[in-house]
């Protein structure tokens, strides 16, 4: 193992998350996947271990950790099940907008219950006509006296229906273009707010995905996150800090797939010896290990870069997301290949890993959009001189 010089506290985070993964997630992951069941009890275990507050400042009942601490925890969870890890990560994604742009009052109201794990959060951005192109947002919010009135539908929202707190972006003034969007906190119990049916997915089946439906949904005026018109800014900042988390899901998943592949290769006998003895197999495993470790190094570096307080983090954040999630797709596919017939069967865990890997290249900005971000950053960097 490469030494990444974790502090004692960071090692504790790894240990706690690893134990939850071994004792709670791994024994249940097959059932959760097959029954497409939301991991309520596991999330309670995670909450009880104080990990929901990992990235939330101590003054709001959290642990006061940073992006790197989240990366370490998510990597461990993803070694067990990306579906469970996604449900955990999506709560952070819902909390970040409030943390980044919200008023002190909003933070005081929502952060402690999110930090304790009492309430799950979720993030409402994507719509039918606004995926990679966020400017296609149709959901609107209109101020009516002391209340905002929301109308529209959000699509494919992780944790929808199971979360209690939603950070949602809506257009408040279409004439202002990108500066015409604002973010709001919507609560599960708000009038006019409902959910669509649970989506059926290729992978991450332990996580729940639904529509958020707003029909004259009325919320108090003070639920506006930050100033009016700063919605896109908040979204971008949120994704900048959350992307290394998704990248770390790729790292954890890749590690799990490599573990399975190597253990299998050592015990599977063909032509009178373990298949591990064949170079054709060794080379596949070696390439898996190389890509995995390179991705981990980049993810850790990007997360530490963000935690250093650097201003411009988009490029590093996008780079690690692309690299680690493309790696996860490749490595899980290779793991299925190594296990071959067994790997294709549902009684072995690698087919699930391969199904789970695909979403990582898609959600929180497709890997194509990430490359756009990186390209634009390069363009900007090189035009300065």
């Amino acid at each position: 193992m490469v030494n990444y010089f974790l502090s004692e506290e960071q090692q504790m985070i790894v240990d706690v998350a690893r134990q939850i993964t071994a004792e709670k997630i791994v024994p249940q992951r097959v059932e959760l996947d097959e029954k497409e069941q939301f991991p309520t009890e596991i999330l309670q275990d995670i909450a009880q271990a104080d990990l929901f507050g990992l990235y939330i400042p101590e003054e709001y009942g959290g642990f006061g950790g940073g992006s790197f601490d989240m990366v370490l925890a998510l990597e461990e969870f993803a070694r067990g099940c990306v579906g469970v890890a996604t449900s955990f990560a999506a709560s952070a994604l819902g909390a970040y907008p409030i943390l980044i742009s919200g008023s002190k009052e909003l933070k005081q109201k929502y952060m402690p219950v999110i930090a304790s794990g009492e309430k799950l959060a979720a993030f409402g951005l994507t719509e039918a006509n606004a995926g990679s192109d966020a400017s296609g947002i149709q959901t609107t919010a209109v101020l009516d006296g002391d209340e905002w009135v929301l109308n529209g539908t959000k699509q494919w929202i992780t944790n929808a229906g199971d979360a209690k707190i939603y950070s949602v972006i809506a257009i408040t003034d279409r004439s202002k273009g990108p500066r015409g969007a604002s973010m709001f906190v919507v609560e599960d119990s708000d009038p006019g707010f409902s959910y669509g049916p649970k989506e059926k997915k290729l992978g991450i089946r332990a996580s729940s995905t639904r529509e958020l439906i707003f029909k004259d949904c009325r919320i108090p005026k003070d639920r506006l996150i930050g100033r009016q018109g700063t919605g896109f800014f908040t979204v971008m900042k949120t994704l900048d800090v959350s992307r290394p988390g998704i990248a770390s899901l790729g790292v954890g998943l890749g590690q799990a797939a490599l573990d399975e592949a190597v253990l299998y290769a050592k015990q599977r006998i063909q032509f009178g010896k373990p298949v591990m003895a064949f170079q054709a197999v060794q080379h596949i495993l070696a390439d898996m290990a190389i890509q995995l470790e390179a991705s981990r190094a980049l993810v850790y570096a990007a997360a530490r870069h963000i935690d250093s307080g650097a201003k411009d983090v988009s490029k590093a954040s996008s780079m690690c997301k692309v690299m680690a999630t493309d790696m996860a797709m490749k490595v899980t596919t290779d793991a299925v290949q190594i296990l071959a017939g067994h790997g294709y069967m549902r009684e072995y865990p690698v087919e699930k890993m391969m199904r789970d890997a695909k979403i990582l290249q898609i959600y929180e900005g497709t890997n194509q959009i990430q490359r756009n971000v990186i390209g634009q950053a390069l363009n900007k960097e090189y035009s300065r001189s």
Partner: protein
Amino acid sequence: MKIIVCVKQVPDAKDVRLDPKTNTLAREGVESIMNPFDRHALEAAVVLKEQYGGTVTAITMGPPQAEETLRDAVACGADEGVLVSDRAFAGADTWATSYTLAKAVEKLGEFDLILCGKQAIDGDTAQVGPGLAQRLDIPYVAYARKITECVDGVIRLERLMDDGYDEIEMGMPALMTVVKEINEPRVPSLKGKMKAKKMQATVLTAADIGADPECLGLQGSTTQVVKVFSPQFSAERCMLTGTVDEQVDQLLVKLEELL
């Protein structure tokens, strides 16, 4: 409510083997863990503390490295750890162990409840809990599978029996041993781990607890190990050979004879 939980550090039993050539326990790579049944006792204690308030003290008798188990206990919700440790305790059987623990518990002062796992996985004797209760002269129930309530100094619980369960009531202070069914132990929390790292276990020696040296360790034990050995199994066996089909044929013939 003041709750004491007895915990024991044990080798992860499923990994322990006796090397038949040297007659020694192959312990290489065998991890030390908290006795799994004690985890359930600890969890029950922490749940009681959360429900009714109070403190949870984990106590262990063992060599200095058993402090690790006390750290585990604190990480999982215990407030403090007490290590009862002295070379004079070496070789203790359950009789000497219950004596030593009883003296240590008396030293700690008043308490309401003592919880133990039903047995330790290295010895599987299930004797220290009842022995401790007898020495402290307090009521005792084995195999608690559920704690129903705990009010006004009376605890109500269900005791697992071979053919069902008994609903039990007893006054405190009291001792009970718990079975796995009582709860699902939590994993340590981050804050617990940090607290555990800083924890200073109270160390009690034979002199600290005012123990009679004649009652300690091997000297104080009522049972002695005559010998330790690898179990020998022997049977007159008949190997069924040939191709798989031939083996199955022979098996079917044998089954026909047997059933």
